[in-house]
């Protein structure tokens, strides 16, 4: 019973955070919920071991990100969600409307990236993970993380240059 309530508490506490990452990966509320549900179900089947080993969240996140890649392969989600990439915006005015517009463009651009690139960008720039942590989570080398990150950023730079304008000016 203690294990059951511990799992219950974990789900209640972490669902929000996991859903936000999953939403960035999938770009869709329903798919994000399915992805988080799938990761949590797998964790529940081995909950005793995960708790005994310390923090269960790394396992849940590993499943979430790897499952995302395999889902994408199976369902070709990106083809459904992002048929067209919007034209690059040219204004760099940093007001609220522009931030929202950039987010819109970025959302679509993200969905056009291959799943591993998307996962690397979300882990590096949203979750603020180190290259080593990302490599561990995705089960690849640090070199792969670096190259996927560079390619992903390069692709975004062509679509949403405003996101990089301030950074480039400040260099």
């Amino acid at each position, binding site marked *: 019973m203690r294990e059951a309530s511990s799992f219950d508490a974990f789900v209640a506490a972490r669902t929000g955070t996991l859903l936000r990452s999953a939403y*960035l990966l999938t770009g869709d509320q329903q798919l994000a919920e399915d992805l988080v549900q799938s990761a949590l179900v797998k964790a529940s089947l081995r909950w005793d071991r995960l708790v005994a080993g310390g923090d269960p969240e790394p396992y849940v996140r590993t499943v979430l990100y790897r*499952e995302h890649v395999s889902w994408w392969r199976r369902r070709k989600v990106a083809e459904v969600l992002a048929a067209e990439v919007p034209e690059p915006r040219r204004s760099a005015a940093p007001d609220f409307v522009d931030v929202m517009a950039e987010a819109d463009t970025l959302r679509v651009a993200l969905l056009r990236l291959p799943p591993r690139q998307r996962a690397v960008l979300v882990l590096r720039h949203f979750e603020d993970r180190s290259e080593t942590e990302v490599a561990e989570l995705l089960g690849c080398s640090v070199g792969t993380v670096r190259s996927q990150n560079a390619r992903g950023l390069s692709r975004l730079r062509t679509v949403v240059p405003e996101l990089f304008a301030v950074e480039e000016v400040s260099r």
Partner: protein
Amino acid sequence: MGQQLRTSLQQIAKEATVVDLRPRVLARARLVRRRRRMASVAAVVSAVLAVGAVLSSPTEPEAAPPAGRAVPTVNLGDARSGGLPDAELSVVDVDSGDTWLVTTTGRAAQLPVRVDSLSGALPMLFADGTVLAFGGPGQATLVRTGDGSVTKVSVPTDQEYLPVVSPDARTLTYAEDNQVDAIELTLVPLDDTPPTTLRVTTSGASSTLVPIAWSDDGTGLLVLEGRGATRVDLEPRPRARQGVHVKQDVVLANGWAVAPDLSRFVMGNPAPSGGRRTWLVLDADDGSAIEELTRPAGDRLIGWTAGDRLVWWHPANGSYSVLTTDTAGRSLSTKLRLTSTLHNLRATWTQDEG
């Protein structure tokens, strides 16, 4: 780096509606657990059905025993209680959970332990017949076949698995598919030394059954999957090689066998044709088929002896026989006949062919 990128990502993430997933997750977890139990039971049931099909159909004539030697016949109803130090064959009744140990010289003993909930787990006879290991959620049961003494070993898992004892009877191993991307192989020393867990990259096919075979010299292991295998070297330190994938349609549900030097393994096709099942001898280095043989559909493959003989559990005419063939299915030899009123027995074999 990319502060504005981070801000935009946070902006997108905020669009996600946080919902309470607990009811969905708990209901789904219950369903997955139930399906896993059903899948394990289905493996046993399919074997039993195959046995029934063969019992009701004509079977091939058995090979005559070598001149001067009568094939021993053992009646399980006459088995005495207690251990059997030189057991070569373990037999379990999948319905009652009763377990017998048998030698090919015709002696039999019933064990003082019962497998109350098999769930597809087969008792594995190992370490020169001196130890019988049973799997179970969170716990493995080891039975010393000499005196029937029972040792319980806690294992940190709630999954189904087939525990295997090393040739020197000092290490218990089991493997578990983590349902994501790997199999976790755990070696539990049967003293106070902490266990070691290794990640074994899968060949791409997961399976309810994840059997393990030790090499006869104890230096390596082969972890089998639904359609693949991975070699693990234990010296100088445990290390898993790249797994191999089998392209042909093969399953583990009807038995399997691994060569004592781990160079080859055998799996069977899931669908018999004309009352016979095709078996493939596969190369453990690349998963390619080396040889192909057929056996009656009800036969279970239960061992591979040092003399490159495959050992089969063959139901026929209300009794069971232990047969051996070469790896091409030829040179059939009968080792033992078992009589029993039961029709749902399964077996494992150890020892070289004598």
